[in-house]
């Protein structure tokens, strides 16, 4: 019925980029440095070799070499490495939204959940952060300790849904 591939991606440098003061100043410095706006909640931006995905009101997940962001933040926030704790799992193929409908209460088919969107939710009791890479692919950032269990769940569901 549907087609979906589940791929565990290699570790990548990931940081939490948190702003605690002068958000507009930080946004201005970011725009000046990267030629793009800091993404709003539930969206992402790719610029300067970085992917910034905003999952929280004050926190962005940064994938890539984040060292250049320290200057953007100045004294208005902090960067903290978190890449050791997250496994990236790519769900690709036309069936990824269908697969995400299993084991959770998240509307993966919502028109607003379009390429570039992000959302955090719970799948099969595991808190995951989702990022729509493109129409045919979604990346899930999964707590590393649950990674194997959730990947197993997805494989099991995908096989049964496909059947």
């Amino acid at each position, binding site marked *: 019925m549907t087609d979906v591939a589940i791929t565990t991606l290699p570790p990548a440098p990931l940081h939490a980029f948190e702003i605690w003061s002068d958000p507009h100043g930080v946004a201005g410095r970011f725009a000046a440095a990267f030629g793009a706006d800091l993404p709003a909640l539930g969206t992402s931006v790719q610029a300067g070799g970085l992917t910034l995905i905003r*999952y929280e*009101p004050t926190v962005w997940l940064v994938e890539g070499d984040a060292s250049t962001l320290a200057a953007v933040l100045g004294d208005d926030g902090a960067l903290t490495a978190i890449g050791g704790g997250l496994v990236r799992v790519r769900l690709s193929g036309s069936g990824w939204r269908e697969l995400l409908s299993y084991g959770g209460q998240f509307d993966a088919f919502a028109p607003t959940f379009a390429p570039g969107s992000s959302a*955090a939710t719970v799948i099969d009791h595991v808190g995951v952060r989702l990022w729509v890479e493109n129409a045919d692919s979604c990346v899930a950032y999964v707590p590393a300790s649950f990674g194997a269990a959730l990947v197993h769940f997805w494989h099991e569901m995908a096989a049964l849904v496909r059947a």
Partner: protein
Amino acid sequence: MYQIDCPHCGPRAQSEFTFDRPVEAIVPPDAAAADALQALYTRTNPMGVDDEVWRHTYGCRAWLVLTRDRVSHAIDAVRALGPEALS
């Protein structure tokens, strides 16, 4: 399974949220001991509407205040609580 309209994320299922306490039970750490204990240990527990602190723990992790009816379960309002950058 409520639908909670997170001011940051939009409508989401209750399973992403956790209830923490009624707003009346927020105790500042520097409150006088007697006041703090009163706030901690006595509750209005109304059979009706109350303002409650919830957290979108498995979503955007932000804290919210829900105005919720404890009999009908209708949620009249949701507002953000806490710092919000670029909001």
